[in-house]
């Protein structure tokens, strides 16, 4: 499987994703410069974390207009895999590939730490190796991870099993304290209706190697293979 990792000006987890895809998964990866228009035949497009255009104006707003995004939209429409992590998730919402928006964390502070997540749906290309209800540990690092979507949309997300991951306490309980950023119903990651476009705030690429004592992220990547 060939991965394409989009590089926007201000992306900063592109190299991390590249490292995991090539060195940990042993797959092929190419960097896709934001000004390009071709996906170079890759099967899965990763929109990595970072601060595309420094998150000025709104996170992901300017990146959503990059030339490469036209190709990404085409890829998604054709059923190809698109995986947005952190800033990548924000870009996907701004580009209209996923519903909702990511707003400022309720604490109005950047938060970088491990959180625990409950696998809400394992019936997707991104979570199929997990058990439903399984509790994962992954790092988050963001200012704007507070997921919001209109009521109507939320119902749809719930009904169609589009909510992938939710912030939870280590025992799997959904408590208010366990929600680090104020996300609606503790949403940490979602997929689109077709199930081929995923966005999530936590960073699976930061927990994919034994040296970090946690390989929950690797399983997420392996689900896609």
């Amino acid at each position, binding site marked *: 499987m060939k991965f394409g990792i989009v590089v926007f000006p201000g992306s900063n987890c592109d190299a991390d994703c590249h490292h995991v895809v090539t060195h940990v998964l042993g797959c092929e990866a190419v960097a896709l410069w934001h000004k390009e228009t071709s996906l170079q035949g890759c099967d899965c497009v990763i929109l990595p974390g970072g601060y595309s255009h420094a998150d000025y*104006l*709104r996170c992901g*707003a300017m990146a959503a*207009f990059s030339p490469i995004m036209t190709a990404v939209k085409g890829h998604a429409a054709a059923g190809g895999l698109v995986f947005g992590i952190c800033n990548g998730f924000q870009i996907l919402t*701004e580009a209209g590939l996923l519903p909702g928006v990511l*707003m400022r964390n309720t604490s*109005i502070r950047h938060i970088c730490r491990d959180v625990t997540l409950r696998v809400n749906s394992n019936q997707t290309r991104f979570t199929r190796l997990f058990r439903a209800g399984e509790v994962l540990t992954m790092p988050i690092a963001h200012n704007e991870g507070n997921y*919001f979507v*209109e009521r109507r949309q939320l119902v749809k997300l719930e009904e169609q099993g589009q909510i992938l991951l939710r912030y939870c306490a280590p025992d799997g309980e959904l408590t208010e304290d366990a929600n680090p950023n104020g996300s609606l119903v503790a949403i940490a990651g979602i997929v689109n209706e077709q199930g081929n476009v995923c966005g999530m705030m936590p960073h699976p690429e930061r927990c994919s190697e034994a040296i970090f004592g946690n390989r929950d992220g690797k399983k997420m990547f392996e689900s896609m293979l």
Partner: protein
Amino acid sequence: MLAKIYVTLKKGVHDPQGEAVHHALLSLGFRQVSDVRIGKYIELKLGEMERNEAEKKVTEMCQKLLANTVIEGYRFELE
């Protein structure tokens, strides 16, 4: 020509930053404040052009980039 653009969160959309500022104002002793909403104020300098034309252009900019119309509304003045 100068465009003054106000981008505000739509009614009903929750505003974490506004809430945090509200909280801070209360704790500074400004008990009179009952609500805070935070938006953006953008000033654009435009070259010479017809007012009509400017209105069309600025609307387009807001729709496309300056506001996220899922959660934000906008209005503007031209000077």
